[in-house]
């Protein structure tokens, strides 16, 4: 990872002692710390998925016991959601890019930023402990009174992990909001911001408003479990539905934490690879805010069959349809952006296009779930599983991978191998669809989720799904291998390998420690591809970076 110009100092090589990493206040290094940490959790969650997909090859139990199976899907859900997806784009790409994109030298609160990583890691260790000491068997949803009274697995450890990691989210959200408000370069008005920033801003709002609720909720589960205080268990005077209200009050908005930042990435990538300003910039920006706000009022769509009142159900249903509209608007605007563009299909763009396709399917199947009469049938079946994987894996993970490829040269100063990149993107797309499309059919047929053993007629579709998962897994491995390889052997990158507009491409790759020697002044809109400067392959001219 030495810089090409051995003299040039950048954030990676400026100092390389363990302390210089563990005590760093540099937002870029903190982003890298997060990257390494969440990859570990992604790996754990992935291993669990591989194991239970193998188990599901046959209708009866052939590999593991019921108890193990239940722990595997819980481990998959908890690690993937709380310790991978939620921090994925915000804490890695957001931390790395946000200050550079707005022309700042760092976050508003670099120490809080570092603290967030420690807090997150501490939460993660509790999560790990829960797994190591035998796992948790409640599902990532922790429904009461099962989790609070009946389960005899490490609920408390896992709940503590989630409780602690939540504070990392809050710190990150706080930092983003203050940074975006206070530290934009001169001339960088709100409507000149890249849409990635709008996405992060909307996400940050959800993080600080929603996360306290999940923290309180898991705490209450802990209190009931440890001290027998009747909160959720009706046998001791509690109300089991209260938990579901509190849980989904956070966890529905949280699905937007798991997609809004991805949408931001997609806007950047599509603009760059079609060399156009995102069509309807203002609409796309505001739709992120609309999603963040409306997203707080739809939680009851998870509870249509929970014995919630019919009338409450109606309100939640109509609001859920409304929250779908801004997402639809985004998809249309991205598509329209391609019109009369100059499109090239590099790896990040393949992921972006994959995102549009898969997110469209994910979003449309969300309408099925918002339709109360259909929800009754498909709630808690594989239909739901397929739906949220289309959104969260087909959407967020595709965006994450697209973003990682897009900014890889910026982060590490090296190019990944483009041919391998495209090949892996296609493998992942195919594997993903083969894994999850059959699950829509399984769900409508009536196969409930979280079933270890199942009736024989569901086997063929399950085998297809497992086959797809193997392809998907192979695709991820491929990406991992060539990315690591490229750190050492990849072609060196210039400052702006994609000819992209955006301040982050005006600093050298990798960026210097303090990003900008002199604060840049912004005098134009985002995605200004009419600017000839953008097309110079390397405009690392003086002034903007201290290279």
């Amino acid at each position: 990872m030495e810089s090409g110009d051995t003299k040039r100092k950048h954030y990676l090589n400026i100092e390389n002692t363990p302390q210089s990493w563990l005590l760093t206040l540099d937002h870029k290094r903190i982003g890298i710390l997060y990257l390494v940490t969440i990859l570990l959790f992604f790996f754990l969650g992935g291993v669990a998925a591989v194991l239970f997909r193998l188990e599901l090859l046959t209708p009866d139990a052939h590999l593991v016991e019921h108890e193990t199976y239940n722990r595997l899907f819980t481990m998959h859900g908890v690690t993937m959601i709380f310790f991978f997806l939620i921090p994925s784009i915000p804490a890695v790409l957001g931390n790395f890019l946000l200050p550079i994109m707005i022309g700042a030298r760092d976050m508003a609160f670099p120490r809080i930023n570092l603290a967030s990583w420690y807090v997150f890691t501490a939460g993660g260790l509790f999560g790990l402990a829960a797994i190591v000491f035998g796992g948790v068997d409640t599902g990532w949803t922790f429904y009461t009174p099962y989790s609070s009274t009946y389960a005899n697995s490490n609920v408390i450890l896992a709940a503590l992990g989630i409780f602690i990691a939540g504070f990392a989210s809050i710190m990150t959200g706080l930092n983003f909001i203050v940074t975006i408000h206070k530290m934009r370069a001169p001339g960088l008005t709100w409507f000149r911001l890249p849409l990635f920033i709008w996405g992060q801003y909307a996400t940050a709002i959800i993080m600080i408003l929603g996360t306290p609720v999940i923290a309180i909720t898991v705490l209450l589960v802990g209190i009931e479990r440890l001290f027998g205080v009747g909160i959720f268990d009706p046998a001791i005077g509690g109300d089991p539905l209260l938990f579901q209200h509190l849980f989904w009050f956070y966890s529905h908005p949280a699905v937007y934490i798991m997609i809004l930042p991805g949408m931001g990435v997609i806007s950047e990538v599509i603009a760059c690879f079609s060399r156009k300003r995102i069509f309807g910039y203002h609409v796309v920006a505001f739709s992120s805010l609309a999603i963040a706000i409306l997203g707080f009022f739809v939680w009851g769509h998870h509870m249509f069959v929970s014995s919630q009142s019919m009338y409450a159900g109606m309100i939640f249903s109509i609001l859920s349809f409304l929250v779908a509209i801004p997402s639809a608007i985004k998809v249309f605007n991205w598509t329209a952006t391609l019109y009369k563009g100059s499109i090239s299909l590099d790896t990040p763009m393949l992921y972006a296009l994959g995102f549009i396709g898969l997110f469209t399917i994910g979003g449309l199947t969300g309408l099925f779930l918002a339709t109360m009469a259909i929800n009754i049938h498909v709630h808690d079946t594989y239909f739901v599983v397929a739906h949220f994987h289309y959104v969260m894996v087909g959407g967020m993970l595709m965006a994450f991978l697209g973003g990682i490829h897009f900014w890889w040269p910026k982060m590490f100063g090296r190019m990944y191998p483009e041919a391998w990149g495209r090949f892996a993107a296609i493998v992942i797309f195919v594997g993903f669809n083969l894994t999850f499309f059959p699950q829509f059919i399984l769900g409508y047929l009536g196969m409930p989720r979280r079933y270890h053993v199942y009736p024989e007629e569901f086997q063929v579709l399950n085998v297809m799904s497992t086959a797809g998962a193997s392809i998907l897994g192979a695709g991820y491995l491929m990406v991992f291998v060539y990315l690591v390889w490229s750190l050492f052997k990849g072609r060196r990158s210039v400052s702006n390998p994609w000819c992209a507009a955006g301040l982050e491409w005006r600093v050298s790759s990798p960026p210097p420690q303090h990003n900008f020697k002199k604060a840049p002044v912004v005098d134009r809109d985002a995605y200004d591809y009419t600017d000839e400067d953008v097309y110079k392959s390397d405009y690392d001219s003086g002034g903007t970076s201290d290279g």
Partner: protein
Amino acid sequence: MDIGIPLFPEQASDLARDVDMLFFFLIAVSMFFVFLIGALLIYFIVKFRRRSNADRPDATRSHAGLEIAWTVIPLILTMIMFVWGAVLFFKQSRPPSDAMEILVVGKQWMWKIQHPTGHTEINELHVPLGQPVKLNMTSEDVIHSFYVPAFRVKMDVLPGRYTTAWFTPNRTGRFHLFCAEYCGTEHSKMVGSVNVLTPVEYERWLAGEVGDTPADTPVEAGRRLFTQLGCATCHHPDAGALGPDLAGVFGSEVTLADGRTVVADEDYLRQSILDPRATLVDGYEPIMPTFRGLVNEQQLMQLISYIKSLGDAGETGEGM
């Protein structure tokens, strides 16, 4: 459709057909948009691919007409989905008044079922063709969910309260019954089947040619409990009774001591028995003891069945 892979679930109730119609409408809308977006993406990618690095794209920034169109059209379509879905949902949530009532108690990891005739079954439910069936359900431990895909019926089964579901089977056969809410270790074994029989077969089944001989009906069992537990000492129609007359109380409006008025549904009766202080009736002393721990879920349901059977005033003493 015989390609070895099932693609569509059986339809075995009237509502199943209605739900599927709506489902197909959503499929059609979805396919339209998926193909529209897919076709546009492919067309644009081919048409506007970068031919040389000197390509300079068009600088169109936005178009108000288009933005309005793709806001309003999806809005209209989703509102159609909403209304259609809500109308059907109301139908799914409101059992007809002539429905046969069956008691269902879920517990880790089995379904206990009792017919109005007193027949009990475990993980099996026999019902006659064409007869609306209403399930009164509760759980002894955690949350479960009663799910029969062929009827497109699902309802959570909660501890501490009653929920209902209903269906009218329109095809004979054996259909899956699943627990759909994760409830612990053997969740995926909390399954069974619903057997839809012709009315004649159903009579034979009731007559004990298949299955067990019946015990008491829930109402009879409830009446016996009412006496055994001493409810009748306070609840009788005579003047000076310590407790209110329970005849006709079900479905009526009750004024509570704290001024609230509530409709006496199953959940109210349940609470009156388990936690009488919380639902103190206006004008009475808080002398009724709690019966929590003295009756199990099934007995509670039987007591409630009995109270419900006491139509008009004047019949309370009957069981004594």
